[in-house]
């Protein structure tokens, strides 16, 4: 399920802005479509959640209530209340609630550090939000909606195992 090292090498030289722009756009798309997510997060929405995909050369720090997202290169120090690491597409599947967070944690596929209460709140908020990234992102893509939906679905089909699809 990990992205191939080739992808890692391909993405490594990208300027941060080229990653941060689309990522911020995606975050706003999701929050616009799922306002209840912030309700469930409550005060934890102000916390900084760092996502560290093992197989990407970047880390993402999200502050949900501020709709904030910043991208750092792997290995560069970041300030965060919470750190969640694992394969990129596993993290995405977790965001969509397609797999059970506890199960992948117990099996050591993802690791977490920092404010455990915030992690639990995020997990529960995401779990209730019925995120569907192809649909959510397409809804935010205006005239490019069909393209985004098609692209995102294709990526998901490629990477998700049958059980998690």
């Amino acid at each position, binding site marked *: 399920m990990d992205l191939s090292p080739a992808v890692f090498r391909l993405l490594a030289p990208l300027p941060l802005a080229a990653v941060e722009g689309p990522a911020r756009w995606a975050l706003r798309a999701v929050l616009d479509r799922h306002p209840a997510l912030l309700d469930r997060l409550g005060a934890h929405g102000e916390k900084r959640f760092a996502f560290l995909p093992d197989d990407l050369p970047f880390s993402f720090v999200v502050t949900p209530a501020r709709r904030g997202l910043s991208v750092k290169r792997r290995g560069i120090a970041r300030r965060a209340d919470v750190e969640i690491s694992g394969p990129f597409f596993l993290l995405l599947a977790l965001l969509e609630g397609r797999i059970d967070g506890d199960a992948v944690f117990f099996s*050591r596929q993802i690791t977490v550090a920092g404010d455990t209460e915030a992690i*639990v709140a995020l997990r529960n908020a995401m779990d209730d939000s019925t995120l569907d990234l192809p649909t959510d992102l397409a809804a935010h893509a205006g005239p490019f909606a069909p393209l985004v939906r098609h692209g995102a679905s294709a990526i998901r089909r490629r990477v998700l195992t049958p059980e998690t699809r």
Partner: protein
Amino acid sequence: MELICPAGTPAAYREALEAGADAIYCGFADETNARNFPGLNFSRKEMAQAIELGRARGVRSFIAINTFMRAGDERIWYDAVDDAVALGADAVILADTGLMAYTAEKHPAQRLHVSVQAAASNPEAIAFLAEGFGAKRVVLPRVLTLDEVAALTRKSACETEVFVFGGLCVMAEGRCSLSSYATGKSPNMDGVCSPASHVRYRNDGDTLVSELGAYTINRFGPGEAAGYPTLCKGRFHIAEAEGYAFEDPVSLDILDQIDVLRAAGVKALKIEGRQRGKAYVAAVVSTIRKALAAPPQERAGLVASLRNLSEGQKTTSGAYEKRWR
């Protein structure tokens, strides 16, 4: 037998509904229920919508108000019961006898179930609750063997409901202060056990260390299946040896004993897991629903797939099997 399924969020409620629940239990988003976790549970509005959704499909909704009223703040618990009744809960699941007395007096027509947290482990305790407060059903504590469940069900003054799958309390429920001893937060008063606010995971090289408050609860070597730092499933040092003093990080699974429970007259089978995600609820409920309909010899194969979703990826028949003790 009825299948009683957990829902920590409206999304999980919908999954349980689709997967074949007979009844779904949930709680309000505050300290009135024993799964008072961050980001979990139902607002009054969400609860109303869930109950309506269930009713349209003939599925009942039970509301767990199963912590003990904090002195001086009893109103929060009374309001929870009043609102549950007003919203049309098919049953309220209660643990505090003071709250049961209030409910029986104020809402005599409301169906009252006794929570596992009330620790009714024998016929006399059940009689006390059934006669005193009109309890119609008691959820049995996970301290009984199957034989004891059967004997107790025969002598019980009301229906019995039994946990068959999910998290396992090693200690008699509702009588455990281990969590508050280590963190100041208790299942009975705060609705949390080993609360996330006091949990820390730390990597010590390749070893994952879990801590609760000031205490190390476990160390997991590389590749070893991990667990949540629930106190009673921690690894400790006793009498020159290291090990799981109370229980391994495992889940309860007695699905191979369904026929025994049915023959004993048990009215309902309960799945634990309001704190688990909707993917878990969907998988567990649909699999158990299938297993209930399947011939006994096919059940083991059906439920084997659930093991990967379990804490520690292992299951036990717990106290239901006498040797466990």
